[in-house]
């Protein structure tokens, strides 16, 4: 113990960031060329990016090294309509390709001995919702998944990032990855969140300022008073969209909020192991004086409820703003891109965002489908009615979120207002299942990407917070949620 404290006081030791501490704790070995073999503690698998990885293992005759460190669940392809009939019989998936891919996940996990959560289980949900919810995601772990929004798990202080299918296979076979160390970037959010402003508005404002490639090559650590004051749900929204700023991962230091969230979750450590884990987790936050390669500071007090106008997540304006003119951008490439975006989005420069009518509202996705998100949307929907000509979907992120929302009566508020209350899954975020936005129609969406065709061919997406989405649903246009709220 004495030795330990002497080491900690060693003034010659360089102060380390959270990222460096997790990296060092997972370094198996460093190659002469600088590439590092990094141990992976946690691996989440879904149906879309894993079939070719399992096939690769099968062809090479390789087993899964540590099957108990991987957890599989279907989410992307699943329809969000009921999965069993009144008699409890499992309903078939109409789309043959989706059914084949979902079946492949079930067969592959059984063959390789990996835990699998079926579509009909209450534990099923979006992979980035169930990880934290089950306590599978833990501070100080390395966590990967064949999905870019894996960055979400950084909200609990896990070094979490999306990987391709070849890397999924690499992790299954070796429980490691060959990686180069990333640069670090601190995004410090100070000030106070204004009335009607949520974590989604904060991350949209950050991406709108630093750009869709602003975090490229870096792991972002979100710090500051506003981040510390957020719940785990809010932090998950922030870390989730780190990838939309191009970052390799997003991290938030574990603290009492994190420990309180995790304690007692089914896959979190218990008893003496819990105490031991918490003691280690407390050593993880970045040391005073730790240096980042880049620092970006933002005052949250100045952030208004925000949304996107274009086809990149960096195309952000406050709801009080107007559709920007392409000429207003200095960069010629951005100017050309902005014009194409406006054409695709069917918008004219100078139009007030609040004058834009929507036909669809989507409340869900790994960014905003947790209980707090549904509460925020329900608070706006309560006693109001979805506007004529608007189809509004609420898709809980998991069976457990759905169950809790129903226990709180949120489903009845939504249904009474004319929203559809659906089964958990990725739904209208990415046009891989029956929930799509038709060509030329406009959607106010709590998801994370407004790319061309993302919600369906020709679909027009505006990213915003759950409360703002509910405001759009009941007014039939992009609306300032503050006008519908009482302080």
């Amino acid at each position, binding site marked *: 113990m004495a030795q330990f404290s002497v080491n900690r006081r060693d003034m010659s030791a360089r102060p380390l960031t959270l990222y460096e501490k997790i990296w060092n*704790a997972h370094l*198996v*070995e460093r*190659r002469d*060329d600088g*590439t590092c*073999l990094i*141990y992976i503690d946690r691996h989440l698998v879904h149906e879309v*990016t894993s079939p*070719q990885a399992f096939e690769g293992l099968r062809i090479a005759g*390789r087993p899964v090294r*540590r099957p*108990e*460190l991987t957890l599989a669940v279907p989410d992307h392809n699943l329809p969000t309509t009921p*999965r*069993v009939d009144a008699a*409890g019989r499992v309903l078939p998936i109409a789309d043959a390709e*989706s059914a*084949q*891919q979902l079946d492949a996940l079930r067969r592959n996990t059984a063959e390789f001995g990996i*835990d699998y*959560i*079926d579509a*009909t*289980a209450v534990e099923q949900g979006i992979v980035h919702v169930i990880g934290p919810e089950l306590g599978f995601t*833990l501070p*100080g772990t390395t966590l990967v998944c*064949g*999905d*870019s929004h894996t960055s979400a798990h950084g909200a609990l202080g896990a070094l979490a990032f999306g*990987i*391709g299918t*070849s890397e999924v296979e*690499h992790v299954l*076979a*070796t*429980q*490691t990855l060959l990686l*180069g160390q990333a640069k670090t970037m601190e995004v410090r959010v100070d000030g106070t969140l204004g009335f009607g402003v949520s974590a989604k508005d904060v991350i949209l404002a950050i991406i709108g300022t630093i750009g*869709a*490639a602003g975090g*490229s090559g870096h792991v972002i650590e979100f710090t500051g008073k506003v981040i510390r004051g957020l719940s785990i749900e809010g932090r998950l929204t922030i870390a989730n969209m780190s990838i939309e700023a191009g970052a390799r991962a997003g991290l938030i230091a574990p603290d009492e909020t994190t420990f309180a969230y995790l304690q007692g979750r*089914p*896959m*979190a*450590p218990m008893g003496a*192991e819990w105490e031991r*884990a918490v003691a280690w987790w407390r050593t993880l936050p970045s040391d005073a004086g730790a240096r980042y390669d880049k620092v970006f500071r933002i005052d949250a007090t100045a952030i208004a409820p925000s949304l996107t106008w274009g086809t*990149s997540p*960096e195309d952000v304006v406050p709801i009080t703003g107007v559709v920007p003119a392409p000429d207003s951008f200095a960069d010629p490439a951005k100017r050309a*891109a902005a014009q194409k975006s406006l054409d695709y989005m069917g918008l004219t420069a100078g139009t007030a965002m609040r004058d834009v009518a929507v036909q669809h509202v989507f409340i869900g996705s790994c960014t905003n489908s947790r209980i707090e998100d549904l509460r925020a949307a329900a608070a706006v929907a309560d006693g109001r009615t979805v506007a004529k000509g608007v189809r509004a979907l609420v898709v809980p992120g998991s*069976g457990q979120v759905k169950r809790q929302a129903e226990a709180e009566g949120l489903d009845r508020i939504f249904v009474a207002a004319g929203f559809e209350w659906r089964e958990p899954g990725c739904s209208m975020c*990415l*046009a*891989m299942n029956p929930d799509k936005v038709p060509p030329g129609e406009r959607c106010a969406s709590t998801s994370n*990407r407004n*790319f*061309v*065709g*993302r919600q369906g061919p020709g679909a027009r997406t505006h990213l915003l917070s759950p409360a703002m989405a509910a405001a759009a649903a009941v007014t039939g246009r992009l609306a300032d949620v503050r006008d519908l709220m009482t302080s």
Partner: protein
Amino acid sequence: MEPVTQVSGRAYPWGAKNIDTDVIIPAHWLKTISREGLGKGAFETVRAQPGNIFDDPAYAGSPILIAGDNFGCGSSREHAAWALVDMGIAAVIAPSFSDIFSGNAFKNGIIPVVLPQEAIDRLIEVTKTDIVTIELETMTVTTAFQDRFVFALDAFRRQCLMEGLDEIGLTLARDTAISKFEGAMHASRPWIEGRSGYAGIAIDGDRRT
């Protein structure tokens, strides 16, 4: 993977910024359980527009794509790299790439070449009439007009490309080091594998109401 040392040919002169993976391969193509045949879905929304560069006979079958900043941003789908391979693209030249796409590209034998915007602008002009040559040995992009642009490449990834190495095979050869790490982890962070509060979740769905 086949070793790659050089890519030479015409290049699609696109140059657009923030080309995301939904543009490279839309999500409805991701329902496949194979790596093959995705070329027909590549750039589907771009190809739906008349006069697009991919259907211009002048560039048909080009092994190189020239793009703008942040190429391959968005999803981690390796289908984007598989789609490019399937349509015959062996290298992408851009001022910057998304980290995940870049990794996926290397693993499928595609060279992601990073060059400054001035070089991109010049190569877009050249490829309208002539070929471009990428050499991994010298890490250069050259043209018949004496242009010579030097690029940087991660040493390990370059070696994997040039020797056609199987990364999983390389890592499996480090089994002793991995086992040693696991032994130390078992002592220092037992909760990672301990499952103290967890009896195993193999949920087959009968608990949902």
